[in-house]
């Protein structure tokens, strides 16, 4: 009894903790009391992308490449102003993009593109905001970025020298803009990528009007041979860049590490080391030789990923061996980020759309409602059937199912907050199917108790010994079920995973509820008069179960000659027989039925 109460208290503690966890997520974070829904229930667009090599073959990207691809796609989706997009990898090679609502055609196209990494010389750098067109540029000033080596900060950092505030007064235009370029048409055709002849008045005007904060800046499709107006990816600086000097595909490797001097001693500063291939080495030798001689900011080259500048280091020397290194105020993490961006920035594959699904919000909610309705109907049917089969015992089944439902709901809600789990239609199906599997644990348990009663045990001991046998079976079968869920979850893709997740979760909940609720409840109920005396409606009526008239020795082989531990309970049952039962037995015996059974089976 005490043990039973302790189990129930444990269950209360678990439920209490789940409720508290949920409450905390609602109060202190962006949690919610309802689980997040997947797109098929909420409405929205889901695109599944598969990496593909240029030749149309399926690419087998490494995990690193894939996570980089996810980062790149996230950047693209964010750049198009879509909020709350979810981007995940799936099944080891696919990328799933989930966008609420209906994205426009442009966004879709952008997502499918392969990432484009390129090196472009900087022509003009300026403050990120728009500049009133027509304002006379203040001569004699150069923007800050080019002036100090510290300006090579990678994306995401705002080193002091590059801070927009510092440049703001001087940012309108670079001082060295030559007069010819201000004319309406370029008089001289540009001789190289750094030639300011690229800066036509039209380009200048566009540059002045450009606002880094505007949402619709999409430069990812910029042609290679033309100048490009874009911003640092954190929006801190805007640039007018020359045509592509080296394309990202020429990078054969990029690593991060501590900078070393020629003697091999470490300087303690982090650096990003790039290795170009043959063609890249030549191209970079050209560009670095040219840039090192120029004034700031034209001695900077911009590393452009998908049309955004991720870094714009100053050239400090001509690099002819194809192995430049970028230094600045990196720390280990930012150096690694930049190295990864360089290494994977030009992913060697693009994406093909494997499936794109657009679910209207009405259809989504209709599916959710139908799913819930199916669940309710299923539950009611199970309850009715249990009532018919198990009478009052069915209340334990129903209460157990309700507890299981509460625990599952809380777990799913909590996991949708902590793990970003979203309930899909397949997941709902998994939950509904779980009703049957959970109820089966109770059936196995109850049938075992009945078996023990048939063997002539008293209810209290039947519950205990039935439980021991049932628990073995429940654990074994739940293990198989859980195994199926885990294997499906790890190996399968798409909807299958949502289904496997709920199936696995409910299997665990099933075990918890059976151990901490169903069994303790039965232990307690076994001591009530209603059940213990085997009321006709209790579902555990020994008379109906034939416990007495049969006598236990007729079938089950007793351990070593029928004595032992089971004997007392047989006697107990014998003692509890009513007169009516004795009569019934006598009738049976006299009619010869019992004897004939015995002789059939035993002789």
């Amino acid at each position: 009894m005490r043990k039973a109460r302790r189990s129930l208290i444990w269950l209360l503690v678990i439920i209490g903790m789940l409720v508290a966890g949920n409450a905390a997520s609602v109060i202190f974070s962006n949690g919610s009391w309802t689980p997040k829904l997947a797109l098929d229930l909420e409405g929205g667009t889901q695109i599944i992308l598969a990496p593909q090599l240029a030749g149309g073959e399926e690419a087998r990207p490494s995990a690193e490449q894939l996570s980089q691809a996810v980062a790149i796609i996230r950047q693209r989706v964010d750049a198009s102003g879509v909020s709350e997009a979810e981007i995940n990898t799936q099944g080891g090679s696919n990328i799933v993009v989930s966008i609420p609502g209906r994205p426009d055609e442009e966004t879709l196209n952008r997502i499918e593109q392969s990432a484009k990494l390129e090196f472009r010389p900087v022509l003009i750098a300026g403050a990120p905001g728009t500049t009133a067109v027509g304002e006379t540029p203040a001569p004699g000033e150069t923007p800050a970025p080019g002036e100090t080596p510290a300006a090579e900060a990678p994306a995401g950092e705002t080193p002091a020298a590059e801070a927009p505030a510092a440049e703001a007064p001087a940012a309108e235009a670079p001082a060295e803009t030559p007069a010819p370029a201000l004319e309406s048409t370029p008089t001289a055709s540009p001789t190289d990528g750094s030639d300011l002849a690229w800066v036509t008045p039209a380009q200048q005007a566009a540059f002045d009007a450009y606002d880094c904060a505007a949402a619709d800046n999409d430069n990812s499709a910029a042609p290679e041979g033309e100048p490009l107006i874009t911003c640092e990816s954190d929006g801190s600086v805007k640039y007018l860049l020359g045509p592509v000097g080296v394309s990202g595909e020429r990078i054969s490797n990029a690593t991060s590490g501590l900078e070393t001097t020629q003697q091999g001693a470490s300087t303690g500063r982090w650096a990003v080391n790039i290795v170009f291939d043959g063609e890249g080495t030549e191209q970079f030798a050209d560009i670095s030789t040219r840039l090192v001689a120029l004034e700031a900011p034209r001695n900077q080259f911009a590393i452009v990923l998908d049309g955004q500048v991720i870094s714009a280091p100053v050239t400090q020397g001509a690099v002819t061996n194809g192995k430049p290194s970028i230094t600045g105020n990196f720390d280990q993490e930012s150096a690694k980020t930049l190295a990864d961006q360089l290494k994977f920035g030009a992913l060697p594959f693009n994406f093909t759309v494997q499936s794109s699904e657009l679910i209207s919000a009405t259809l989504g909610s209709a599916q959710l409602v139908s799913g819930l309705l199916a669940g309710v109907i299923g539950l009611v049917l199970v309850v009715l059937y249990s009532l018919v089969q198990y009478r009052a015992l069915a209340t334990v089944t129903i209460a157990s199912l309700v507890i299981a439902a509460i625990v599952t709901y809380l777990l799913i809600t909590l996991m949708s907050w902590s793990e970003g789990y979203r309930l899909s239609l397949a997941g709902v199906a998994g939950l509904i199917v779980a009703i049957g599997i959970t109820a089966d644990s109770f059936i196995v348990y109850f049938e075992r108790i009945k078996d023990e009663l048939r063997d002539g045990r008293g209810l209290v001991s039947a519950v205990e010994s039935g439980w021991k046998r049932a628990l073995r079976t429940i654990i074994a079968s739940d293990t198989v079920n859980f195994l199926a869920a885990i294997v499906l979850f790890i190996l399968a893709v798409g909807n299958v995973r949502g289904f496997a997740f709920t199936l696995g979760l409910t299997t665990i909940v099933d075990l918890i509820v059976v151990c901490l609720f169903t069994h303790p409840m039965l232990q307690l109920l076994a001591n009530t008069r209603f059940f213990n005396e085997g009321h006709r409606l209790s579902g555990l009526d020994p008379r109906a179960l034939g416990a007495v008239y049969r006598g236990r020795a007729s079938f089950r082989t007793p351990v070593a000659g029928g004595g032992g531990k089971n004997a007392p309970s047989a006697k107990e049952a014998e003692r509890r027989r009513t007169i009516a039962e004795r009569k019934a037995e006598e009738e049976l015996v006299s009619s010869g039925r019992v004897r004939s059974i015995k002789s059939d089976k035993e002789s």
Partner: protein
Amino acid sequence: MASFTRFGNDLYTGRRSFDIVGRRKLWYLIAIAAIAISVLGPVLRGGFTFGIEFTGGSEFQIAGAESTDQSLATDAVASVTDIPARVSIVGNDAIRVQTDTLEDGDQSAEVRQALAEAYDVPSEDVTESFIGPSWGGDITQSAVRALLVFLLLSAIVMGIYFRTWKMSAAALIALLHDLVLTAGIYGITGFEITPAAVIGFLTILGYSLYDTVVVFDKIRENTMEDGSESRRTFGESVNLAVNQTLVRSINTSIVAILPVASILFIGAVLLGAGTLRDIALALFIGIIVGTYSTIFIAAPLYAHLREGEDAVKKADQRTLANRAKAAAERQAVSA
């Protein structure tokens, strides 16, 4: 329901007993015939009907339309492209339009617009999916891989739990029987195989083994308790276990199938074709077949496998000899 309880009692005590293990040749024959039909049927019918997820193409679904005139959809698609459209009505008021792969994104947007206009619904209510031809293949590939890994792992787990590989073998053969039969029913009836149906197939794996484990646990218990002085042959012990768990098997499959049936009903009546219906259909068939195969294939097969063992053979011979002796004595007494 008293009679059902009585039925359970009788099965438990052995008063009433279905000779399942003894008639195993009959069950084997039925199983072989069913498998042959499941394999040949779909072949004769011209293979499985695969959903759009496997063949690739575009699907539009119009919800809440006032008219369900199918020609409106055909005309709307024809106004945009030459690709023929397959139109069907799902549920009460939804129209599903499937086409082969459309040429590009613009075209599918145009079709969507045309359909929205034809049925006079806002274009937000037109659901659009595009499925590349490799998508379904990917799902299948990963499903087959999951299947193999699962079979291997569960064979090991069962082998360890039951301490005999023969139970694993019998359970897995019964499982394969379930899968072949379920797939066969799909193939013969021409139900569309969609990824949701594949999910259903995979769940059958778990369910079928789950069911088998419960019955095998009872078999293990009975045969272990028998010891060397059993009055029953091995086959009889197995048969008793099957009979004793018959009530449980019936109760469990009814309880498991009730929610599935309600999904199937709701899915088919309210939603029409879709994830819910496809999962439920595969499960519905699978649960019935899975319960059947546990009783009629896994258990007899296990008895069959074990009866060949020397120890079991000897014990059975002794039991039968004792029984014959007792019968002879009784005859002598009565005579």
